[in-house]
């Protein structure tokens, strides 16, 4: 009996010793579309976050504390995003959450304000995200910043008669509105304005209407469905040149898109990091989304490091305060400056070629 008591006490001692070390782990969350029409992008984003997390843990964590990201699936739907957010905050007490997609990020914004959680958006671009919540920060410029740069270029180089093809969702509608406003202010005329549903793969009727309107170019505001779009464009002789933002990037490389233009937010990665990424995930390239999510995760790590060094608790409020105190985050991916909730970044313009794309204009946002 005495031996049993000693064994129990020893076991309890070991358990008590183990609990604080488990509590050392820093738990963060990410609400990403891991299934549904946007899953391809969601998985790229997840890989970026996992890459950054694995690297910091391999280097010993943040001041000796390991980091764990919990991934929740939004399915690309705001209601599922809200449920995921609540699970992360209520069950895991995560002080910061990475988000994706405009409609979902907008749905999370009031919750971020109410629960004082720092929500970091590395890719969604609807303009409404600018002031959606004091606790929501955007690490990339929004639609209007990219559209402004692209519109100026299109007016100067392509003509003053345009059509718009956009996704009937938050970011797509913003692209339409911003482009229309900027283009008409420059003396341009919109000759066709066609919406397609999010996740749809049949664009034929809209493309036919646009081709029949004979614009100088068509401004495209879509986030998914580019392989099908490219195929269907190829079947319409004389379809006008397409122009778009970062989201048009996946169409580059398709023969039907040679000569198309897209703006892009300047973003890079060290070759050795890119090689490590290829090795870890066995993928052809580290995409824009993987890079941006890895970089945003690193920004959160830097904020946590700052708080731990100052012995401050890891809360959303403190993380937000640290963000605006540090203000400038420089990395091989980008120099990100937070003068407001939306970062300032360089916007470039590319032209699609038969083998890839070429830089035709660099600009500062």
């Amino acid at each position, binding site marked *: 009996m005495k031996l049993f008591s000693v064994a129990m006490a020893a076991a309890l001692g070991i358990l008590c010793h183990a609990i604080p070390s488990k509590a050392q782990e820093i738990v963060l969350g990410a609400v990403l579309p*891991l*299934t*549904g*029409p946007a*899953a*391809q992008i969601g*998985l790229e984003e997840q890989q970026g976050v996992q890459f950054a997390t694995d690297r910091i843990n391999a280097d010993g964590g943040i001041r000796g504390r390991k980091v764990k990201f919990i991934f929740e699936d939004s399915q690309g739907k705001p209601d599922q995003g809200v449920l995921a957010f609540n699970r992360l905050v209520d069950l895991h007490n995560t002080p910061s959450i990475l988000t994706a997609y405009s409609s979902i990020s907008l749905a999370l914004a009031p919750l971020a304000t109410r629960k004082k959680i720092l929500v970091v958006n590395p890719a969604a671009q609807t303009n409404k995200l600018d002031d959606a919540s004091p606790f929501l920060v955007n690490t990339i410029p929004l639609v209007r910043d990219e559209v402004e740069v692209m519109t100026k270029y299109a007016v100067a180089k392509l003509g003053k008669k345009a059509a718009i093809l956009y996704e*009937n969702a938050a970011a797509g509608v913003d692209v339409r509105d911003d482009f229309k406003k900027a283009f008409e202010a420059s003396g341009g005329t919109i000759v066709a*304005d*066609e*919406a*397609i*549903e999010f*996740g*749809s*793969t*049949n664009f*034929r*009727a*809209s493309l*036919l*209407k646009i081709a*029949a309107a004979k614009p100088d170019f068509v401004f495209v505001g879509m986030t*998914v*469905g580019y*392989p*099908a779009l490219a*195929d*269907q464009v*190829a*079947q319409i002789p004389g379809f006008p040149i397409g122009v778009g933002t970062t989201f048009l990037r996946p169409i580059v490389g398709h023969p039907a898109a040679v000569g198309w233009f897209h703006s892009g937010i300047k973003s890079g990665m060290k070759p050795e990091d890119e090689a490590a990424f290829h090795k870890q995930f066995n993928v052809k390239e580290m995409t824009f989304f993987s890079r941006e999510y890895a970089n945003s995760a690193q920004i959160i790590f830097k904020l946590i490091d700052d708080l731990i060094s100052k012995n401050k608790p890891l809360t959303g409020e403190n993380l937000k305060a640290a963000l605006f105190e540090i203000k400038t985050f420089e990395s091989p991916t980008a120099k990100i400056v937070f003068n407001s909730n939306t970062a300032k970044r360089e916007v470039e313009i590319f032209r699609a070629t038969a083998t890839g794309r070429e830089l035709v204009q660099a600009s500062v946002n």
Partner: protein
Amino acid sequence: MLFLQLIADGLVNGCAIGVVAITFTYVYTTTGVFHVSHAGVFTLGGYLAWYLSKEGIPFVLCVVLAMLICAAVGAAIEKGIYEKLLKRQATPLVQLIASLGLLAVLQNLVAILFTPNVLQFESIAWRMNVLHFGPIDLTIPQVLTVLTAFAAVYGLIYFSTKTNLGRRIRAVASNRTLAEITRLKPFEVYVYVMAISSALVVLPSVFIGLDQAMQPYSSVLVLLTAVIAVISGGLGSIRGAFSASLVMGIVQNAVLIVVPGRWSIALTFTLFIVFILFRPTGLFATKIRRAS
């Protein structure tokens, strides 16, 4: 020219929806189950054909194999779920909920087994080829969609009216209790119906996938449109469901001449509501109606 092309594309869409509609109504009329997981079988068929074609199997064989596998899946759904529920006196609502659950399972299974990404039949080079019919251009998959849809609808009508099994199915659909008394084995018939419908629904799935692309979650809108066509055409009528599908497909595209694309679906469904207010029984009078 634009108008004719839009009409032709609408006809193709209508044919694809039409096959989903006739197979859905065939199941509903016979078994009484509102088989929404038909959309899951639709998705599965397309992905199976894609996977087989990627493995280098000739395209026609891919389609046939996908149809056979889906027929087996359909039969298994009937035997393993619907039959058990019916024998336990489950209400139609319970059956519908089970079917909804199964749809989620099938869609997620496809996403896990294959990929959640948008997929194309990249190994089929001819899918991009365009055929010219005067001022109208159609891709080969579009032409195949039309041809196979008409073959499916007339084949099903022929099967239903001219063969012993077809007549037996109609007898069961007409009165299950009487069919049981006369030893027509309704539960066995239900398995046949599910297998036939599940095999046929692979056709539009594959040809839409060939023509455009596929992703695991897009079939719900196709099924919703097909169900509306089934109701507009008159519940239980194969001809009615197919004709209504053609009308819906054509109207959805034709209205684009006068309204922007974002209004197309809303306008079409408004027309449907107006139509159904004036003719609640649909276009065609129902010849086969379930007894209960």
